[in-house]
């Protein structure tokens, strides 16, 4: 006789340990692949797991095997027109479908190995070289929790949620309802018995206790029948179950999302000729990190991309990262456009505004005071947070000095100079720290 066992409840992911080993062994390749994936993704999409592809040649498991060449004799099925001794040309380069399939014994044709990373694994690799503190990592990686709130009662649930008072109330109602017809009958029978007793009491003294034929008088028989009926009804009422499955009521808990709020994030970037791919990559990481942070705290996030050289424009993400302009730089144009967009589209009573600006710090000397004025008068009073990074600049540029000056006495302005990926986080550190304090 066979044993049949249900193993479905057993550990899933039994080979999780093996996967960890695999990721560890090919860390360098995976990290590179994740960086590549990040470069291709949209900012708002970073926060997902996904497929990464690493070169297959690195992860071969070699063994002694025979290579091509020499005399190979193969038996194949499905002959159509060949006879012994036919000569066939060799297919050139394997393609062309010249009529002979390649035997599938050499399966190493794929040169890329693609596999899926979970969201956690993906973010872990993404965070790795950004030098994020662990607390921040967990804060960013966690999926926003909802609060469970009481929400009435339901008829199914776990025993621990059983609401006893409600259940008993249901039970009582059901018992009353189910027993009602019998109680009504019982009432009638009781009355009939009482009437019968009265009748008997009136007649008994004159009648002989036992009739001549030995049977009880007919009158007593009717009383007995009524008494039996009464017993039957009582038993029927007693058989109504005390508690039944559909009496059960459970406390219902509904997930309640955190207070809904929305934020808009302005990504402002200088796209003049001096911003090369590497600088754009650093800028992108800076934007992603801010975006990740915002997704933790706001239900809905809008991203506005503002690029500028001498004039500024609101563009889509693709145009933002993948276009290149030349010429001079007027930062004030971007700040002005940002301020204008906020005024027109994002009323402050409905939106939290965050601005992230990335630039290599180049700006026309005469434009700087204007920037300072725009920042201090137009933007800082309106935004939750303004962070500015100067990317890969050898020494502080003119714009930096203006911003530095604006910083005095202001709490929502963060400045940072980024040379490597690890420098990105410190710029935002204060933002994270502040939110943590608020949350605590």
């Amino acid at each position, binding site marked *: *006789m*066979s*044993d*049949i*066992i*249900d*193993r*479905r409840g*057993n550990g*899933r*992911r*039994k*080979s999780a*340990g*093996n*996967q960890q*080993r*695999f990721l*560890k*062994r090919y860390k360098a390749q995976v990290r590179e692949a994740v960086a590549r994936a990040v470069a291709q993704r949209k900012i708002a999409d970073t926060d997902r797991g996904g*497929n990464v592809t690493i070169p297959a040649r690195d992860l071969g*498991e*070699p*063994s*002694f*095997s*025979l*290579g*091509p*060449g*020499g*005399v*190979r*004799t*193969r*038996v*194949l*099925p*499905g*002959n*159509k027109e*060949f*006879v*012994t*001794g*036919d*000569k*066939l*040309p*060799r297919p050139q380069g394997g393609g062309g479908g010249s*009529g*002979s*399939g390649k*035997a*599938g*014994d050499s399966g190493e044709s794929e040169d890329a*190995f*693609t*596999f*899926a990373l979970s969201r956690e694994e993906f973010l872990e690799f993404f965070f790795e070289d950004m030098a994020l503190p662990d607390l921040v990592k967990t804060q960013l990686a966690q999926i926003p929790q909802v609060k469970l709130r009481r929400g009435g009662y339901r008829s199914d649930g776990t025993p621990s949620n059983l609401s006893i008072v409600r259940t008993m109330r249901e039970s009582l109602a059901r018992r009353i309802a189910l027993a009602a017809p019998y109680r009504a009958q019982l009432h009638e029978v009781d009355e009939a018995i009482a009437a019968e007793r009265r009748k008997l009491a009136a007649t008994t003294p004159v009648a002989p206790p036992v009739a001549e034929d030995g049977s009880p008088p007919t009158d007593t028989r009717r009383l007995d029948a009524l008494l039996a009926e009464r017993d039957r009804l009582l038993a029927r009422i007693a058989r109504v179950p005390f508690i039944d499955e559909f009496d059960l009521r459970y406390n219902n808990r509904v997930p309640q999302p955190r207070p809904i709020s929305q934020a808009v994030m302005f990504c402002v970037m200088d796209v003049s000729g001096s911003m090369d791919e590497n600088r754009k990559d650093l800028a992108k990481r800076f934007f992603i990190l801010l975006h990740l942070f915002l997704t933790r705290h706001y239900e809905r996030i809008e991203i506005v991309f503002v690029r500028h050289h001498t004039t500024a424009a609101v563009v889509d993400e693709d145009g933002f990262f993948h276009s290149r302009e030349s010429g001079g730089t007027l930062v004030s144009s971007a700040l002005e456009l940002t301020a204008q967009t906020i005024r027109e589209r994002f009323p402050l009573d409905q939106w939290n505004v965050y601005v992230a600006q990335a630039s290599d710090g180049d700006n026309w000397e005469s434009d700087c005071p204007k920037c300072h004025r725009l920042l201090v008068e137009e933007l800082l009073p309106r935004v939750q947070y303004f962070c500015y990074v100067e990317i890969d600049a050898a020494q502080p540029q003119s714009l930096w000095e203006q911003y530095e000056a604006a910083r005095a006495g202001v709490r929502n302005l963060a400045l940072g100079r980024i040379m490597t990926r690890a420098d990105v986080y410190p710029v935002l550190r204060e933002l994270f720290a502040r939110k943590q304090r608020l949350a605590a």
Partner: protein
Amino acid sequence: MSAEERHGPAGPSPEAARVVEPEPPGVALPPTPPGPAAPGSRAPDAGHRAERMLPGGSEWTFDLIARYDREIARIAAHYGLDTYPNQIEVITAEQMMDAYASHGMPVGYTHWSYGKHYLATEQTYKRGQMGLAYEIVINSNPCIAYLMEENTMPMQALVIAHACYGHNSFFKGNYLFRTWTHADSIIDYLVFAKRFVAECEQRYGELEVERVLDACHALANHGVDRYKRPNKRSLAQEQARLKEREAYLQQQVNDLWRTLPRRPGEETEEARPRTFPAEPQENLLYFVEKHAPLLAPWQRELVRIVRKVAQYFYPQRQTQVMNEGWATFWHYTILQTLYDEGRVSDAFMLEVLTSHTNVLTQPGFDSQRYGGINPYALGFAMFRDIRRICETPTDEDRAWFPDIAGSDWRRTLDFAMRNFKDESFIAQFLSPRLIREFRLFCLVDDDAETTRRIGAIHDESGYRRVRELLSRQYALGEREPDIQVVSVDLEGDRSLTLRHFRRDRRPLAPECETVVKHLAQLWGFTVKLETQAEDGRIIPVHECRMEPRQRRVAGSAVTSALRGVGR
């Protein structure tokens, strides 16, 4: 330990088998007799029809599985299938992927390559490129078979008949499995291996262990004894002997590499064999385990574990066609008998046959879907054909198979299952009729000629040649290069020489250089690889030099061995 059942090379997805809607029981079938009747017989008796019919529908329950299993077991016993007791385990798709990654082993030591296989399986499965196996069965006692919860009841019945009675009886009966694997102790051994590897990782570091395992995996296919039979051992004995063996082995090694000057008159140099090993050794891992000079005891044990697992899989690599053919033949025969008895409905049978035929597709060589000869198709056709030869032989069959034509088919099939492997099975039983049916032909691709030519086809003059070539195609010796240890330079630099005995001018694949590097890691000294051509010439292929400073020494035993060497 597992016969891994990827049903069908093209991987018909489980969904493909769900086209038939279930039908309420007791609708369409002719009624059948009550009481113990011989399977296969049909006699109408309307009164008992409903109770004979097994419940239909596509939903399965544990109760239903048990009932179907009882019926299938009854019929299997009637046909004389001898099996280990069954342990049927129902698992999820995710667990099935887990099982895939570890070759179906229920336990296994940790290694990155299994993680890689899991990720690859997951990827192809999620993209829908491949259906998962309907089942995996493990050659153990009791025989463990996994069923997937996604399958319908007819599929579960198919899988039970296929795995729990087909494969199971093959594991128990076939001589290769009887010789090479110990169904009773394999799970114990794997548990031991897992613990041992974990212990080594703690003590010596994951990296060190991984390095040894990587090297061993590269050599695993050349780590099996092809002729010598291994001894039986249980878990308890294994552990008890572990310590003893470690000490003993190390002593042996030290002795072999002794360089201390001998006292005059103690022993003459001639007492030692001039060449070592005295005869070429084909089991590379065994040779490393016993004779590598620098390995620590725990490293030797790791080599041994990989070797034993490889040995365990050795029969399965040689009996694919037979094993699958046998199991497919029996699921078909058993379920057909159930149907003939009127126990299952038309809908049930249609669903079973749909997936049965999906599995048995054999695309022609010129088809887009061609991926080699389908072992299910060939094996099933051969077992059916043997039955046909026994039951209704033609003149051709009498001429080709005088000894089995007209004999009792069950006995003949049983004999074939017990005493052959793919290579000999095909050489013995492939009939001209099947060669015609499959339209087999052979293609000779000689790189010395400008064109390829057709060597033989399915005609009178070609049958024997095609059969011989197909049989050779399944010989492991043909598929894998023949590489042996021929010498160790005992007196000089201790280099190890491997020789590839070439046939048909077929060279080694370039990755052999990596494998040699792995072997050199284990050996600790230079490893040379050479090829012996057909005419006996020796051609050097690759040499992996091992400088003393490259050697990574672990464990104190090795350092003492080194001290003996006087480095």
